[in-house]
């Protein structure tokens, strides 16, 4: 069901146009200097691939619809190993097939940006929007000790801006970076100000380019001797610590004097925003804490914000995944409640409002309990 952004390219910097999320992300990547795109069709991200299929050749840059997600992610591994700026996109089932290669890239420290336009799972599930790949993106996708930065836009404009940031992060820290969007963001159209940004090229003194005039380089993740592999892991952990210290991103709204705080990202955060404005009508002061970097998770900031509120409501389009990171940040000091829909359903503002009312009604103790229930 391809509806193409109107008007078609060229899209002039500074203009305000109505763009489809998938297509806006694709164009933003091109303008951010994406040297190559590799992908495989899957709903609800197909338009991102299709946009690239038309635009990359126009720009004289490689585009390949690979034989599979395995093919796409490994083409990306090879291209990125040469220092190229590479984008890959897919949706939930396809992302699962990329677990091994993501672990390889994290291990070999290969920068690359991977967009997951999440849909409802598990399995083939459905094609409606979802946020149930949070655990996968932030924790256990591939094997081994590694983390990758995960950026979660909640508007099409933000998705475009984060695309450039994602490439910058990837190259600065030599790591794959996830952009975690969902079907709603991918399929919706919004007016966006076209403000493109191409991050500076840092120069990859590690990349394979042909050994001419220098000793050969190897881009690899294997370190057969456990002693060596542990050293490498220490290096990676130090890098993750640095990212955690420096690259936390989040946005707050109405947090001053907020009685309750909603923690939500992406599309769920938009629903929360509407619920919050309605809550004001019945004199309930609610703030929004919106993590933008899901890893590193803004734990310290959240702990501080939550300390000033009576309770926290986590809203997700899942059965409750980010809620674990929220609880790790708050460590029982405030009650944490959860409201979520699954399988392609999006919570409505009304449902969130009800959850806020319940949370206000409940005592801290009750809430803590109900929060636990949500994890049962």
């Amino acid at each position, binding site marked *: 069901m391809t*509806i193409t952004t109107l008007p078609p390219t060229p899209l002039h910097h500074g203009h*305000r146009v*109505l763009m489809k999320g998938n297509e806006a992300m694709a164009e933003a990547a091109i303008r951010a200097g994406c040297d190559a795109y590799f992908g495989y069709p899957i709903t609800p991200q197909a338009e991102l691939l299709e946009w690239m299929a038309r635009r990359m050749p126009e720009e004289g840059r490689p585009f390949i619809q690979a034989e599979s997600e395995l093919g796409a992610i490994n083409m990306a591994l090879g291209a990125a190993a040469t220092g190229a700026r590479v984008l890959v996109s897919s949706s939930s089932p396809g992302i699962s097939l990329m677990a091994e290669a993501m672990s390889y890239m994290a291990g070999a420290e290969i920068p690359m940006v991977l967009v997951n336009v999440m849909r409802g799972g598990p399995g083939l599930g459905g094609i409606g929007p979802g946020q149930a790949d949070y655990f996968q993106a932030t924790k256990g996708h591939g094997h081994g000790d590694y983390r990758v930065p995960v950026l979660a836009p909640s508007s099409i404009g933000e998705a475009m801006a984060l695309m450039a940031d994602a490439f910058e992060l990837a190259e600065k820290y030599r790591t794959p970076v996830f952009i975690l969007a969902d079907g*709603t963001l991918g399929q919706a*159209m919004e007016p966006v100000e076209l403000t493109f940004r191409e991050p500076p090229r840092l120069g990859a003194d590690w990349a394979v380019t042909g050994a001419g005039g220098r000793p050969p380089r190897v881009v690899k993740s294997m370190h057969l001797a456990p002693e060596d592999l542990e050293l490498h892991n220490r290096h990676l952990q130090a890098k993750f610590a640095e990212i955690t210290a420096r690259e936390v991103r989040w946005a707050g709204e109405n947090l001053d004097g907020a009685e309750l705080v909603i923690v939500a990202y992406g599309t769920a955060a938009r629903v929360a*925003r509407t619920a919050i*404005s309605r809550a004001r009508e019945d004199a309930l002061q609610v703030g929004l804490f919106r993590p933008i970097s899901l890893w590193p998770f803004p734990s310290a900031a959240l702990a501080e914000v939550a300390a000033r509120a009576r309770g926290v409501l986590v809203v997700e389009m899942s059965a409750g995944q980010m809620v674990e990171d929220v609880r790790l940040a708050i460590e029982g000091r405030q009650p944490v409640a959860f409201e979520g829909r699954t399988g392609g359903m*999006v*919570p*409505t503002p009304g449902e969130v409002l009800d959850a806020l009312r319940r949370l206000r009604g409940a005592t801290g103790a009750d809430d803590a309990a109900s929060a636990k229930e949500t994890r049962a």
Partner: protein
Amino acid sequence: MERSVIFAGFGGQGLLFAGQVLARAAMDSDREVLWIPTYGPEMRGGTAACTVIVGDVPIGSPVVDAAWAAVVLNPPSLAKFAPLVAPGGTLVVNATLIEAGSGRDDLDELRVPCTRLAREAGDDRLVSVAALGALVGRTGIVGPDAITAALRAILGRKHPEALEADLAVFEGGLAFGRAVLATATP
């Protein structure tokens, strides 16, 4: 204040297009807007729908608890979406294909022979444009000129040949919507 409109009908009736025209018109009228389809796998003959939310500040929730208006172009859509319109909201019904009514007395319900108007203009796909005209004529959610401008902007480049028919059908729908308004006044 946010105004949400659901467009629903058969896949072939051009709903997504009509929704985009409205969204484009809203944007060009310096409003904030969000267009979101209920996307699905390639199935023709199924019921397709999209929602357009127009507001003064950036749109928050892409889902609405109740719609400000709905345009239903086939029987299944009437059944599915009429109940989702907020009390006092507007319901545009394609009278050509739908004999039944919503049965709600808290709606401003318009029966518009959309398919006929469209077919008479020679293109079934324009059924949604006729309905859009009626909606605009009835509610003034955006100015008619904004719609015609949007149609020119969108079709002008890609399908100039189709433009005239679209404009004609829109005008027809618009007049229809306004006429209804008139009869309603006294």
